[in-house]
């Protein structure tokens, strides 16, 4: 049987069950707020949000692969494009663009102009240093790790900190060759 054709982010988003984004946005906000109360240190909150994202990413990748029918990406460039165009779209309903490639093709930026996580959010002065959307960087890192790519994901621009967009830098640290428990001809 021929493999199913890859689907666009728009097509998948249109076909999945969707919910009111307000509920999602306010829930995320309430979690960040509760973490700030419980952990006190902003740095620790950044770390926990990243960890939560990582845990989500390592599970979400299955749904991503199952619904998108994407075939193996030839290189990291294609991987980044797929995350931006299909991944962000099918879950959050927003598209992202990929820019700022380095010469080796192992480091780039994913830029989000629209970000449902931050609707209605304003950070008080006491939250300087908080990476409010840190859950997203964790999701990307976790999902990529499940397809054998060790990455470092950091925020370069953050609108809540006065920048003009959300920019996530994704740096490929190591590509672990996939080892199959079986031989091809078996």
């Amino acid at each position, binding site marked *: 049987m021929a493999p199913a054709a890859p689907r666009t982010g728009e097509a998948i*988003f249109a076909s*999945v*069950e*969707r*919910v*009111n*984004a*307000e*509920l*999602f946005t*306010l*829930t*995320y*906000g*309430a*979690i960040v*707020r*509760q973490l700030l109360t*419980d952990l006190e240190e902003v740095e620790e909150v950044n770390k*926990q949000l990243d*960890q*939560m994202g990582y*845990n*989500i990413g390592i*599970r*979400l990748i299955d*749904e991503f692969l199952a619904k998108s029918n994407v075939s193996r990406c030839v290189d990291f460039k294609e991987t980044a494009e797929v995350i931006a165009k299909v991944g962000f779209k*099918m*879950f*959050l*309903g927003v598209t992202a663009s990929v820019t700022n490639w380095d010469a080796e093709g192992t480091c780039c930026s994913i830029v989000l102009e629209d970000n*449902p996580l931050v*609707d209605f959010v304003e950070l008080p002065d006491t939250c300087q240093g908080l990476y409010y959307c840190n*859950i997203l960087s964790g999701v990307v890192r976790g999902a990529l790790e499940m397809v054998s790519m060790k990455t470092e994901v950091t925020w370069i621009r953050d609108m809540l900190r006065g920048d003009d967009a959300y920019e996530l830098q994704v740096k490929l640290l190591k590509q672990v060759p996939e080892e199959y428990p079986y031989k091809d001809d078996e």
Partner: protein
Amino acid sequence: MGREVSESCIDSLLTEMVSTYCNRFYANKPELAARRIEAIGYQVGHQLSERYTMERPRFSDHLEAIKFICKDFWSELFKKQIDNLKTNHRGTFVLQDNRFRWLTRMSIDQSPENGASEEPSIMADNKAVQSMHLYFPCGIIRGALSNLGIPCAVSADISNLPACSFVVRIKA
């Protein structure tokens, strides 16, 4: 229709929030984890009910407010209304959702490999996980009503899965 996100986003976030508080922060203190999860729900319910009632006249009595939760509020969150409302007319209301979305989705998500297991220990685990998840919607209802000026206590009853009943006791 306003902005939407995939349902997996909210499901993943709730599952991870519960697991963070139950397994990482308060692994041996479920009652503390429960209180935090309920507090997060309270905050969400309070803000949502503020937004959804902005252009409405005030509710004339408790029953009107509860009906708003059962109909408009529930529809915004779950795209369906509460299926059954009962009251003893002395401040206790039972709101039953015959197929509570977060439970049906989450019990599947929690244990894909042993979803239909009959083993008592696994079933007990599932129950514990499910009841942890329910502190969040209980908090949402309490937060929403509190924003409408109705202080109350909310608990959940899942003896009739996949139906879920939320018991609202209004404080005199």
